[in-house]
């Protein structure tokens, strides 16, 4: 039976934990709003780009001179996995669910006898993956120093990936990130970025019978467009990841705050009982002392 002082200490410690989780929840909520806003602002660019790509790739796919980024290397031997996670914890199962998804993918690929290479983006994913697949990680980066993830960071990752592709270091690249569905659901998602898959459900614009002019020419434009498309995909994944992380963190902290509240209730009850018991005990002692006289 813990003493009254012990109970009091525990209550005050749980109370201060609750203050922290509550504060973290509110911070996450504010950050989530901003992250969502940024994700929305980047959407027009991505959508336009998808429309342009859908338009171009339909005609270029059969062209023998089509860029490899679109058609692939013709092989399916080496897979590159770009696993994007958060840099910080305290966001429930967000990081581990992305890593789990990536791990399932790795196990399946290795089962098929394929070579796997990994790029980790974000510290948490790296921590988890390097324990299991340390020798497969070829490059890693994180944004601990970066205040707000911008297109520049996405561009840097894209350049690295494209350079590896140019050197023939892999055939297929897949991006793993937490897709932001809404505040309560974030879906760990795998998306193939090289060879580029023409986005589905995007209608080419209605030209009313006219034909596109291309300057310089179609292949040149595709050649310039595809690397950017890769960067844009990565950028979008990063933005979604930020929003998802904050949402997951908000939910996790909300739960923690509620649990702390419950715990405080239980402990207070126990404290009051113990106090009452002590008072009763003291009374009995006094009464029996008086009776003995």
């Amino acid at each position, binding site marked *: 039976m813990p003493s009254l002082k012990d109970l009091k200490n525990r209550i005050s410690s749980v109370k201060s934990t609750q203050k922290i989780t509550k504060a973290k929840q509110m911070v996450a909520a504010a950050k989530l709003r901003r992250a969502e806003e940024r994700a929305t*602002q980047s959407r*027009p*660019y991505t959508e336009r780009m998808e429309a342009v790509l859908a338009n171009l790739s339909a005609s270029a796919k059969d062209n023998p001179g089509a860029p490899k980024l679109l058609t692939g290397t013709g092989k399916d031997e080496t897979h590159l996995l770009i696993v994007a996670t958060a840099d910080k914890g305290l966001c429930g199962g967000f990081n581990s669910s992305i890593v789990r998804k990536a791990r399932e993918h790795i196990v399946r690929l290795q089962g098929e006898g394929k070579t796997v290479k990994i790029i980790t983006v974000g510290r948490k994913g790296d921590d988890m993956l390097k324990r299991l697949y340390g020798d497969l990680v070829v490059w890693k980066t994180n944004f601990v120093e970066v205040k707000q993830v*911008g297109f520049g960071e996405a561009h840097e990752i894209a350049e690295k990936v494209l350079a590896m592709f140019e050197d023939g270091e892999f055939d297929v690249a897949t991006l793993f990130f937490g897709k932001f569905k809404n505040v309560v659901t974030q879906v760990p998602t795998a998306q193939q970025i090289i060879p580029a898959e023409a986005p589905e459900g995007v209608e080419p*614009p209605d*030209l009313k019978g*006219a034909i*596109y*002019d*291309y300057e310089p020419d179609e292949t040149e434009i595709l050649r310039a467009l595809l690397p950017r498309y890769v960067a844009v995909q990565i950028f979008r994944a990063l933005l979604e990841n930020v929003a998802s992380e904050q949402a997951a963190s908000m939910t996790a902290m909300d739960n923690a705050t509620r649990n702390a509240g419950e715990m405080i209730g239980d402990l207070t009850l126990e404290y009051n009982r113990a106090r009452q018991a002590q008072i009763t005990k003291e009374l009995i002692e006094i009464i029996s002392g008086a009776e003995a006289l």
Partner: protein
Amino acid sequence: MADKLHFNLVSPERELMSADVDQVDIPASEGWLGVLPKHSPLMTTLAPGMVLVTNGGEQTRIFVRGGFAEITPAGLTVLAEEAMKAEDIDAETIAAKVKDAEEDLADAKTDEKKLAAQQALDKLKELQAAL
């Protein structure tokens, strides 16, 4: 009233402009391109430079670097990797930055650093030239 051209300028981080205008001049990689309403469909890559938007006698200048322009019957869309409104750019700040970059280049020891400094300088010079 004459026809208007629907003009969209988007960068990865945000949509900079979406408006109906009279004319837009864009720095296409093959040379300057003036786009008026009812232009035939066209797709082109962009060179770094100023996009000039004319509407009712008013002109807006926007600096863009890297990207595409797509003209459809629905209008003109410029997808720029980087975009800044000219009024937000201060010539003196740029001049100071160019000087910094030149010093960085002179100080750079490894090839890698030299390349990075040179690239930064080139970007700033492009911007300066466009102003």
